[in-house]
Structure formats: C-alpha cells, structure tokens
C-alpha cells in the first residue's frame, strides 16, 4: 500500500525534462536579435565609421575560428577525462583500501577545486617545452596545457559518476553472477558495467556541456579561443565602448546555440532512462 504521506521525488525528474522545449530556444534567439537591433540603433551616430554590428560581421570569421578551438579543447579534454575518469572510478571501487584511498583523494581534490585554480596550477607548473634525452626540445603549446587542465576536474567528476553507477546496480546482480561462478573482474566486465552505461550517459553529457561552458576561462591565459579573439577583434577595431555589448552578447548566443540542443538531448535521455529503472 502506498502511504498518502510518501514523498514522491519523481516530479523532480519529470519537471526538469518538461522545462525544455524548442519554443524557449526560439524565444531567446528572438530576444537576442532584438537586443542586437538596439545596439545597432544606438551606434549609428557617425556614418564615417562602421557600426558596432558591422564590425562584428567583419570579425565574425576570426571569432568563429576561436570558437573552433573551444570545441577542439572540449573534445580532447572530454575524451581524455572519460578514459582517466573511468579508470579512476574503477580504482575507487577496488576491494583494497590501500588502492582505494588515493583514488578517492584525487577524485575529491579535483572535484572540489575551482576550475580557474586548477588552470593556474597546470598552466604555470607544466614547462613550456620538454627536453628529450637525445637533445631535442618539444614545445608544449598553451592550448594543450589548458586541455590537460580542463581534463582534471572533469576526470574527478566522471570518476564519481562511475562509482555511483556501479553502486546503483542491485546487489542481486552481483550475487547471481557469483552463483554462476563468475570472478569479480568477469562480473564487472560482463554484467555490471554494461548496465552502468545507460546510467552514465546522461550525466556524462551534462559534464560535457559544463566543460564546454568552462573553456572560455582559457582566454585568461591568452589562448586564442572565442573570447580572446573577440576581445582582440574589439581592440583591433578601435576599442570603442559600444562594441562591448553586442560582442559579448554574440558570444553568449554562440555558446547557447551549441549547448542548448545538447541540454535538450540530455534531458530526453534522462527521461528515457530514469535512475530508478
């Protein structure tokens, strides 16, 4: 019998997924265009110099080139973070406390530090170039260092997601595998992990979105991604104050246009594979 005073948590998930619809996206794009028009209207004072919006159009390819670097960083960091995170997560559920403790420490250290702090540490600690024993030098470009830095916090979070997913599989699965004479590694590989994949994918996508939203931090270290390129473009076009509003608004819209579909897709997957199932 269901108690009338039972706290039903299912509206939490249902509510989140019903929130997202394409209508909102259209509303926002319209709002953005309207504010662009306002910015355009304000800056048509002097016909001799191009308006802020015309300047934005001129520099558009340059900013988009920077955005491509954002995407490259996010892909590489995510791939690396997934590999390392799954490894770290599996170490976290090891039966040996000696192995488990350091993995848990690393996971929590990177989960609980601000991204900017991790970026500072990695950017300043990793050398500019590596000396190979044969005598040559391999330079490490800044964006590679930034990619490594972005990998670390995502790795910590994926490690925790993997641990949570393995713990969410009913004990009966382990016991019946044991009854069929599977060893621990066989059970993990053939029975537990395949069931985890479904539960891991929605949070994994969520972390990809968060990672992509964090890549602009790299502009602090003069890596030529979208924000740094936009700032460079504003500087090159005369650094007029009326550029600031449309340029930064355009950057917001650029990221929104990329992230919003991913968010919608993630919510749909979450609805399809609820955690309780």
């Amino acid at each position, binding site marked *: 019998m269901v108690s009338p005073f039972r706290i039903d948590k299912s509206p939490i998930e249902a509510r989140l997924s019903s*929130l997202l619809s394409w209508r909102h996206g259209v509303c926002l794009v319209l709002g953005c265009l309207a504010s662009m028009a306002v910015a355009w209207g304000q800056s048509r004072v002097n016909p001799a110099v191009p308006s802020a919006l015309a300047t934005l159009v001129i520099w558009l390819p340059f900013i988009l080139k920077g955005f491509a670097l954002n995407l490259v960083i996010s892909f590489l960091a995510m791939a690396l973070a997934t590999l390392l995170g799954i490894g770290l997560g599996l170490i976290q559920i090891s039966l040996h406390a000696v192995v488990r403790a350091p993995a848990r420490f690393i996971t929590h250290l990177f989960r609980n530090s601000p991204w900017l702090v991790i970026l500072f540490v990695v950017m300043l600690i990793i050398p500019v170039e590596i000396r190979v024993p044969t005598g040559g030098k391999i330079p490490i470009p800044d964006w590679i260092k930034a990619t490594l830095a972005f990998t670390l916090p995502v790795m910590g979070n994926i490690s925790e997601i993997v641990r949570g997913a393995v713990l969410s599989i009913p004990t009966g699965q382990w016991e019946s595998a044991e009854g069929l004479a599977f060893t621990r590694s066989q059970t993990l590989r053939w029975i537990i992990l395949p069931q985890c994949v479904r539960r891991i994918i929605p949070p994994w996508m969520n972390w990809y979105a968060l990672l992509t939203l964090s890549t602009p931090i790299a502009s602090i270290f003069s890596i030529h991604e979208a924000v740094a390129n936009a700032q460079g473009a504003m500087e090159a076009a005369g650094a007029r104050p009326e550029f600031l509003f449309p340029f930064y608004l355009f950057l917001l819209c650029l990221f929104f246009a990329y992230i919003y579909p991913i968010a919608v897709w993630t919510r749909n997957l979450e609805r399809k594979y609820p955690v309780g199932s």
Partner: protein
Amino acid sequence: MLELIAPFFRQLYERTGLNFIVFYEPYEFGRFLNGAATSVRLIFWSLLLSLGIGVLGAWTQGARSQALRVGVNAYIQAFRNTPPMIQLLFFYFGLGAFTPSVDMGGYSQPLISSFTWAIISLGIFGGAFNIEIFRAGLEAVPEATQEAAESLGFSRWQTFLYVTLPLAFRISLPALTNNLVSLAKTTSLAYVITVPEMTYVLNQVWSDNINVPEMMLLLFMFYVLVVTLLAAGLHALEHRLALPGYGQ
C-alpha cells in the same frame, strides 16, 4: 596574529626556501587578509542573492500568468546554457557601459563597482539553478499534507508558510547543497573582472615575489577550506532538519 606566526614562516623561508611571504611580511599579510575577506563576502552575498532569486522564481511558477512563467523559464535556460565567465564579462563591460558614473572629484567612478557586478552576475547565474531546485521541492510535497492542513482550518498562505515551505526546503536541501558549493567555487571567476578576491590577490603576490608553487598551494588550501566549511555547515543543517521517518 602576524607576530605569532611570522618567526616560524621567516625561518621556514631561510632554511628551506619555501617562501610563504604572506605569513611574515606585514604588507603581503594585509593583502592576503583583504583577498580572503573579499572572497568570503563575495561568496556570502552571491549565495544569498541566488537563494532569494530561487525562492522568488519558484514562487512565480505557481502564478496564473503564462507570460511570467515563460519569462522565468527563458531566464533559467539562458543562464544555465551560457558560460558564466562570459556572463560576468557581459554584465561588467556590456551592461556596465550603460550605468551612470559618479564624479569623485577629479576622476569618475562607476556607480556599480566590479565587486557588485560580480555579486549580481553570479547571483543571477546561481539563481537559475536554485529556482529549479526549489520548484522541484515544492512539487514533491504530497498533496495530502496540504489537504490535511486545509481541513485543520489553515488558510492558503498559512498552509504555504507552515506546511509546504518547511517540507519543500528539507526536500530540496541535498540538491541545494551541491549547487551552493558549486557556486562558491565559481566565484573565483570574478578574477576576470578584476575583483580583488583570493585568486586575484595571490596571483599578484606570486607575480611580485616569484613564489608560484607556495602561493598555489595556499590557494588550493583556501578553497578546500571554504568548500569544506560550507558543505559541512549545510550537511549539519540537513541533519538537524531531517524529517523523522524518512530516509535511512
């Protein structure tokens, strides 16, 4: 305070070369304290603003007006799906250009400082997440409790204040803890609009004194401490407010 710890850290530097200059040089110590105070104030006010926005936004979801609900949803989606750093830059540079300046006798100072912009921007960013958390909490309160309150003669407002809200707050507390901790970490991004918080100050210190590893260690320790204290406080609150008879 400084007199107590200064000899130890000075000796540490002389013997091992570990230069924790902020703990023995009065000028750098003052900088460090200012940075820590700014960081704590920034965290406090942006968390408070985000909580206020969260409660207000969740309350509007029960409103009859369709336009209000669509507006709040659009706000949530806009701020959840764009980079917080660009939001900060947009608020400070984009909107800051439109706010009036005050003549301070010789130089003009903007009415809204970078610190205030950081609070506004981060509060609005965190608030977008809090609205969803509070709303989910309000919806998870069983209908039957509200009916029971009604049958006991509670008015609508009394039901909300004494029955629904306390229950909803307890239900949303775990999710809220996660979000507030994450927002506290995000405050370090205020660095980009030159708010003199911990990251910014220690960056200046290590640029002046070339003691990067030591100051980075300190920066890590500072955030680990802040995050641990915040999480511990919220967990204690969660434990204290736990409903008897629910969960383990």
